[in-house]
């Protein structure tokens, strides 16, 4: 599903080069739930941003479902974000002026699937996420855990090949963390969603099938 070889990313900070990734090799199978851990600044988010097409890599190869990200134009990277990946961030990142339902709909609109009715599995996913009764609310009328669940619903509505969750429980208390992590595992088991999750919390990492450690821009184990 995902094949990463010798991936490098150098950020140019004025005259200084910041080596964020120094040759990452990683394979992720379809349907896998992978946890990524590692100290701050080790390049975890950078890896996600490249996988999600938010920033181009400097060197190396990344294949997602057989497509090489290196070769993509800006427009194709935009398409990649629309279709192949879904993002969930630490801060909930909902559009504050839109209702829960419209926050989900706008992802469909951007992906161009807005005209078609939602697929039936998504209704089950909403039920799983406990959002059915909250669709008409605005984000500020929701708890942090609920907002994060909306972000997850929005990230998967277009059925992406991979769900990238960057510290999805970083702002949540234990109770809500457990809930969200349990939901990610359910989505993985019930609809076969491939998930990559960054976390600093060993208990959260344990929800994954496999834990990958990063340090200084490399995968160490």
């Amino acid at each position: 599903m995902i094949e990463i070889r010798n991936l490098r990313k150098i950020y140019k900070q004025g005259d200084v080069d910041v080596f964020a990734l120094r040759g990452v090799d990683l394979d992720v199978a379809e349907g896998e739930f992978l946890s990524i851990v590692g100290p701050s600044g080790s390049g975890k988010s950078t890896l996600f941003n490249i996988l999600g097409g938010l920033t181009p890599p400097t060197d190396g190869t990344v294949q997602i479902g057989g497509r090489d990200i290196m070769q993509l134009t800006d427009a194709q990277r935009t398409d990649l974000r629309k279709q192949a990946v879904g993002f969930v961030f630490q801060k909930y990142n909902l559009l504050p002026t839109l209702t829960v339902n419209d926050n989900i709909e706008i992802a469909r609109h951007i992906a161009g699937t807005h005209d078609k009715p939602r697929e039936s599995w998504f209704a089950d996913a909403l039920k799983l996420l406990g959002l059915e009764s909250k669709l008409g609310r605005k984000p500020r009328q929701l708890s942090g855990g609920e907002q994060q669940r909306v972000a997850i619903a929005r990230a998967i509505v277009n059925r992406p090949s991979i769900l990238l969750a960057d510290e999805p429980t970083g702002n949540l208390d234990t109770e809500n963390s457990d809930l969200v992590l349990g939901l990610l595992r359910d989505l993985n088991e019930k609809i076969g969603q491939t998930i990559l999750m960054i976390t600093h919390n060993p208990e959260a990492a344990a929800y994954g099938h496999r834990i990958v450690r990063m340090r200084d821009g490399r995968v160490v184990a």
Partner: protein
Amino acid sequence: MIPRLVFENLKHRPIRTALSAVAIGLQVTMVLTLVGVSRGMLDESARRQKGTNADIVIRAGGSAILGFGVEFTAKLEPAFRQYPGVADTTGILVQSLGMLDGITGIDYDSFNRMSGGFKFIEGGPFTNPDEILVDDIYARSKGVKAGDYVKNILGADRKIAGVVESGKLSRMFMQRARLQELTGKSEKYTAVYVKVADPSKTEEIAKGMSDKFPNNSIFSMEELASLMSVNNIPMLRTFIRVVIGLGVFIGFLVVFLSMYTAVLERTREIGILKALGASPSYILSILLTETVLLSLIGSVLGVIFTFGTRWIMHVFVPEMVQITTPDWWPIAGGIAVVGSLVGAVYPGLKAAKQDAIEALAYD
């Protein structure tokens, strides 16, 4: 979906939305009021010209449409009167008294004969050469009545002999001979009004007189009235263009500021949209839709405000006539939209080009 997002964004910042729309509305009102007053005043002038009941108007050669102030010799009047088909003539002299005011010197008998006679609301005809007549609109706007004195008209306070119904050429009249004497323009006319025996021959007679008196500008009344339009008054046309330019610029400034702050405020949301796969053109279309909606709301407000300015004119400045100009509503609205869109370009491009990762890191 975009209209929904735009609508919610506008609702989210009601004060910003209201102030921007009002500012755009004032700009629209400015254009509409100017056009409405210009047309209203011109229509009113045309109406008062027609109020003389003349069929043909003769002026000095090269006079501007609204240009009084050029005189020609009164000695021509007998020649005009003897022209075949002419039934009657009356010569007038107009003396400007400032921006909008003017006093018209008439030969009371021939003027009344042609126009069908003044209708007196108060008082009556001149009883001595130093008296004046005013129309009801003048009387109302200046708060005067028959018997009162109007201060400093051509060097003296002059008694109002009578207040007449408006619609006959001028708002203030004096005996022609006295006005000629006071202004040192004896034997001078500003215009001669001509009545023809057979109105169906008016154009023909006007044409013939033009050939015979090439040093004068000679129009049929219909033609003169049709020339009294904004397009034929170069100064007015320029003035309206300047105001339109100003309008576009105000729309530009208002929307530039409003959208610029909106983009800064929404940095994070723009990052979210980009992470969801929104292209730069998607982001741009959101902001442009918002701009168009804002300027349309502003335009509607502007049209409504224009009824307000009309009411204010009517109550406080009755001698200024403002008419409603629905044909200009889409033009003024279009001006607002164009100015606004130009103003939205820079903020819009800034938003479209924003780096998604930096935007998401923004608090």
